[in-house]
């Protein structure tokens, strides 16, 4: 009986590993995976010291930056270079993510350890990008964001200039950055500034509107709804204080989230509320920054100038109450509708989707994708788009939620393998 069971597990294990070679990730609940990420013992071992440099540059020399955003006058980016000739990978951050945030740094370190140089880029939805490097100041447009990214990539390449010998260029990004990756790769096939050898999309949205709707809805999990966010925050702090102040065991280290998860065993509703809150902060930052850049009058009155010391309380409160879908309907669509009066709401929604460039993605054999069966930013069925369009170039892991397994060792090994082949 036992032997039979063992044989069965072996066979099943064999079947699973055929789908995704050797993969061991502990969380089957995508909400837990998304919040907690990868516990240390499952993580890839990255021990190389990365000579990270942070730099900034003016992208539009004539542009006058609003006084309120004086610190974002220059576009910030980071890089780490190998000694001698090496391949270079551009890494694009996800929604609201910065060039030196945890995601880009992790990927950068992984690729650096594998012998690549890298350049880290903030997401076009990140405030510094909107202020210093976005042509329109209105982020979220698949094609325009790609133009903006391409422009800064060319600038950075010119700046690094003769200091480095790049053997081949590569491109990657996670979440929204993966979505950007597809459109930038397509642009490069027209302009040939880089001729990327390979591009890798890590957990991209398929259709932006689906993903932003799902993320907005997560805030419905705040007890009493969004109105009660202030109270919700206070209750989290109180709950945390109870544990934190009574023991020395909860340490603020690299495994803090996992420890906190073990201690609190949070409900699915709470995890969803946390994910929703994190994305809502990105939405608020993006929408307000963009509104100040265009004087559209979405949150800030169009005829009001904000000084360096202006109290932003009311704008902050309003911005936190508006989701990505509000941004789309009351700002993004009206903005693009002005320049193209024939553009319908539905058309714009469908245009901001990988389906728009499906034919390109089918034929572009250099573009690879990794994704998770249970990713929270995909509507049911959307995951099928990837194996269908990318075929063998898509690797779908059975669990991991949204980016929860990005640090898992087999996933990291696979990413590097894609660029090394």
């Amino acid at each position, binding site marked *: 009986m036992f032997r039979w069971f063992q044989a069965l597990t072996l066979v099943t294990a064999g079947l699973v590993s055929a789908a995704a070679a050797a993969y061991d990730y502990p969380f089957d609940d995508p909400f837990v995976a998304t919040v907690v990420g990868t516990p240390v013992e499952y993580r890839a071992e990255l021990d190389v010291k990365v000579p990270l440099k942070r730099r900034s540059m003016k992208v539009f020399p004539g542009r006058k930056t609003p006084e*309120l*955003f004086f*610190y*974002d006058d220059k576009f910030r980016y980071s890089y780490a270079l190998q000694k001698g000739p090496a391949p270079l990978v551009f890494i694009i951050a996800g929604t*609201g993510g*910065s060039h030196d945030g945890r995601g880009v740094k992790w990927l950068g370190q992984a690729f650096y350890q594998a012998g690549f140089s890298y350049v880290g880029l*903030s997401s076009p939805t*990140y*405030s*510094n990008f909107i202020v210093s490097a976005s042509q329109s100041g209105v982020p979220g447009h698949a094609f325009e964001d790609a133009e903006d990214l391409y422009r800064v990539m060319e600038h950075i390449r010119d700046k690094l200039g003769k200091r480095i010998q790049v053997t081949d260029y590569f491109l990657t990004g996670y979440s929204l950055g993966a979505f950007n990756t597809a459109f930038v790769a397509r642009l490069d096939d027209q302009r040939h500034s880089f001729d990327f050898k390979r591009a890798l999309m890590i957990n991209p949205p398929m259709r932006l509107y689906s993903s932003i709707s799902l993320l907005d809805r997560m805030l419905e999990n705040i007890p009493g709804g969004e*109105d*009660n*966010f*202030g*109270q919700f*925050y*206070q209750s989290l*702090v109180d709950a*945390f*204080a109870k544990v*934190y*102040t009574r023991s*020395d065991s909860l340490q603020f280290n690299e495994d803090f989230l996992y420890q906190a998860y073990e201690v609190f065993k949070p409900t699915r509703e709470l995890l969803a509320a946390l994910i929703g809150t994190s994305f809502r*902060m990105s939405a*608020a*930052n993006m929408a*307000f*920054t963009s*509104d*100040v850049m265009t004087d559209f*009058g*979405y*949150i*800030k*009155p*169009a*005829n*009001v*100038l*904000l*000084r*360096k*010391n*202006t*109290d*932003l*309380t*009311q*704008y*902050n*409160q*309003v*911005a*936190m*109450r*508006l989701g990505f879908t*509000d941004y789309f309907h*009351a*700002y993004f669509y009206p903005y693009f509708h002005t320049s193209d009066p024939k553009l319908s709401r539905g058309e714009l929604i469908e245009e901001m989707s990988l389906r728009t460039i499906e034919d390109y993605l089918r034929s572009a054999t250099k573009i690879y994708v990794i994704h998770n069966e249970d990713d929270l930013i995909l509507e049911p069925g959307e995951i099928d788009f990837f194996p269908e369009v990318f075929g063998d170039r898509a690797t779908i892991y059975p669990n991991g939620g949204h980016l929860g397994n990005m640090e898992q060792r087999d996933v990291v090994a696979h990413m590097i393998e894609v660029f090394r082949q």
Partner: protein
Amino acid sequence: MSPAEATVRLGRDPAWARLLIVSAMLAVGGCSTAPVVVEGEEPETPVFSSERLIKPDVEQFGDMSDPLEAFNKTMYRFNYRVDKYVLLPLVIGYYKVTPAFFRAGIHNFFTNFRNITVFFNSVLQFSGRKSYQTAGRFAVNSTIGLAGLFDPATPMGIPQHNEDFGQTLGRWGVGPGPYLVLPLLGPSNIRDGVGLGVDWYVNTWAREALLDPNEWWKRAWMLLYVIDTRAHVQFLYFGTGSPFEYRLVRQLYTTKRQLDIEK
């Protein structure tokens, strides 16, 4: 004058401090916290106004009384510039010219020396456990840890506590008072600002009493202390990516101090 010397001077010269305060006050005088209407009389109504979205009687995240807001915001920008043009270049230079074991030794030394004020505050907070653990750490690291350059107490399992006089006052029931962004030192409040002063005094007194350093040593101490402290604070002014960073940092600082006091 090198940036290193500039920092030393900055700490020693009272004229510098006076200039700092005067310029800060001038800067504050010219800036109100109200928005400016550039066209017409009244602000236009945006698509989403706070009247439309915000319920007046509900507690909002990040709201707190901030009577010193204009001063604080000016100081926040001042600190951003000092950090960017003086402190961070110093830290980067420090990492270039010193080997890792040296930096670790310096950091251990200051951490160990700070345990004098941690001990003093643990006693004032009537915490027997923290007092004897801190005394234990100090005794172990000052002796077999060679004057604190090494940290054998950690592998021995003696925890490092972080008690300062601001927390002690908090324990005694003193409220935080208005939020205050201190020049060079950053986010704080009136109570914690006083606490920093007291801890600084005690620390300096202990240094004189125990080590009686000469002028040269005091300068080196000061410089290394500033660099080591900055190197171990993971914070960048205007580095959160949020246009509402001032409010966010204010809220998180206040929450963190509340937790520190309760712990």
